[in-house]
């Protein structure tokens, strides 16, 4: 479950490690929680090519990937909380900030909200400007810490990548090789943009180990087992 997801994050987002999100400011490009960015991506990683819908406002980030639970990270006064939503089962597994710390899974909020490791982005060189998705776009090129060529097209207004590519082939225009490719970007009222939580029964992740008799939890444990 979460382990597979973190693997995905590591693959698509560069070499950034987990940091203390409490020190990170959320993106401020949305209007104080009233609107949210809705970004429609194609991503390519070790598991193949998939769609990712990312919804983001100033305190929440939601990732929707087919055949995976919807994941919503939320800034709280105690730190970052993760909710995994299972609408079909009407359940929601909540990782309290303390649970994420205990599992050593506190995400880097900046990386989570921008998909690309901010440290990697900082070491790339701007090579040109353009416009895409009605946003100003900056082209960055360079190499990562392993010496692999990197191409990044960055939408500064939305603080989101339009394109991220890793490898020698990235200098070309063959988009099918991109690790991250933006296909649509809109701003929408936050209330309707995020997956509704109504009717989802909340379960603490901390309780899963004590809920072996619960059929939903039993199934979750099995799925996690297979993910290893």
């Amino acid at each position, binding site marked *: 479950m979460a382990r597979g997801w973190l693997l995905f994050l590591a693959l698509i987002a560069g070499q950034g490690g987990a940091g203390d999100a409490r020190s990170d400011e959320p993106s401020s490009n949305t209007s104080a929680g009233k609107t949210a960015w809705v970004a429609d991506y194609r991503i390519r990683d070790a598991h193949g090519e998939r769609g990712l819908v990312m919804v983001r406002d100033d305190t929440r980030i939601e990732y929707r990937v087919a055949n995976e639970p919807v994941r919503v990270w939320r800034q*709280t006064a105690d730190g970052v909380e993760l909710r995994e939503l299972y609408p079909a089962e009407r359940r929601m597994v909540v990782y309290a900030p*303390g*649970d994420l710390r205990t*599992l050593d899974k506190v995400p880097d909020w900046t990386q989570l909200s921008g998909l690309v490791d901010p440290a990697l982005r900082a070491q790339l060189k701007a090579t040109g400007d353009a416009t895409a998705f009605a946003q100003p776009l900056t082209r960055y090129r360079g190499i990562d810490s392993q010496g692999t060529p990197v191409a990044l097209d960055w939408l500064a207004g939305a603080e989101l990548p339009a394109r991220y590519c890793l490898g020698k082939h990235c200098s070309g225009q063959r988009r099918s090789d991109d690790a991250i490719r933006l296909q649509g970007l809109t701003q929408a009222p936050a209330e309707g943009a995020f997956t509704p939580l109504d009717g989802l029964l909340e379960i603490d992740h901390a309780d*899963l180990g004590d809920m072996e*008799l619960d059929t939903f939890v039993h199934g979750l444990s099995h799925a996690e*087992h297979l993910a290893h």
Partner: protein
Amino acid sequence: MRHLSTVLGCAALTMLIAGPGLTAEPEHIRGKASNKRAAAAPAAARGESAQQWYSDGARAARAGAELRPSHEKAKNVILFVGDGMGLSTVAAARILEGQLNGRSGEENALSFERFPYLSLSKTYSVDGQTPDSAPTMTAMMTGIKTNQGVLSVTQDARYNNCASAKGKSVATLLEVAEALGMSTGIVSTARITHATPAATYAHTPNRDWESDAELSAEAKTSGCKDIARQLVEFPYGDGLEVALGGGRSYFLPSTLNDPEDTSSKGRRLDGRNLASEWSSRPASAYVWNKAQFDAINPATTRHLLGLFERSHMEYEADRPLDAGKEPSLADMTAKSIDILQARNDNKGYFLMVEGGRVDHAHHAGNASRALVDAIALSDAVRTAMRKSSAEDTLIIVTADHSHTFTIAGYPDRGNNILGKVVTDGALALDADGKPYTTLGYINGPGYRGPAARPDLTNVDTANVNFLQEAAVPMASETHAAEDVGIYATGPGAHAFQGVVEQNVIFHVMAQSQKDTSFFFCSLFGGCGKGDKKSSLAPPLLEADLRAGMAKQR
């Protein structure tokens, strides 16, 4: 005779000629001390010598032999439960506490490890070799073993089946104590509706029915009440005096914003605000943060409900980070005893205190947080000892079950218990030439495979967020079936001898407290010669307790 005189003569000679030599370290100790050491001070610097080992051991043996049990009855009973605090957890926490205090660690003792009486508790349930917290706490609170996942109902009740649990509720010690006019309290760092605290006051065939949102359709149809509601509608005596822990959302309606996490709401679907209902009673208060908690006057507050988190309280290691601020387990224990003792009727009290998050940290494969929470429980026990008298208060410390947590390898004395194994000053290596930690788990999220083990050489394994390695991949580390310790002091503590079934804990408490002892032996015998018994067959069902109370009225 000749042999004896020879031995005695030799002994006298030894005393005469060998005395001075005993103050020096023997050769094997000096030899070892000369080896490279990772962290520990030399034995001499720790005040250790062969003479000291001998003297301390002899003194402990004499003290044990001279120990005489008290045959007085206890006025008060305090039961501490470290959830998942198995013997390896106690040993590692002992070492960590010692090392945090600047010592080698191994020689340290947690507060309750100095209690005079000790048993081992067999934790299996009626239908499980390795139990969960529901049947185990049921055993401790009702005197019977039962099935996995059910709280304070007999084994005739089936898990998740409300109808099957009708008439199967067994009276708990806390309920009997309240019925007899004693004061009662429960404290936990987990939700106050979680299995361990819930087993003291609630009866249900599903430990997860903590609010009405979790009740199944069958449960609602068959008339089962959720656990939070059972706490607030507690029918015995004048209700619990103290309930402190987490689980706020289970008491608040789904229409109400949480006071600390204001973008979240309560989870109750029936619209009831159980916290308000609690505080609407005379001399009753509800608090949700430390400032409010600190402001509570035990002399004027008869019933206190404290719910310090929406769900579980923070781990002790994270408590300073909490936005709303939370009291420690020791703080809650102290305030509870103050409130329970403030009553003037001199009837005594029953208090249950749970270190609930040892279990959660172990499930996550995080030894550091588990051990820090175990130390916090030890601190709470110390507080209880300070605020009560060994003359009239029975204190028991135990665990509901163990975990797959291990302390392994051959680390040097004083080696960081959270660190990598260092033997004779050098990093110990596995068969592949990689270092490994002293602490580990048989299963859990700390599994690093299926590739080869990671190289921990440059990893800070003492970091509070480090997950110890596990041999078997599992999303959540599991409980373990080994026995757990029972540590006891005060009147009645001497009843703990040998290896006992977990439900014996109930019977020791019930037979040691003066009022409950008289009550139970009047019902079921055991008061002595010529005692009269009622026609009831044990165990005491809740329905019989209610009927008895009604008759008394």
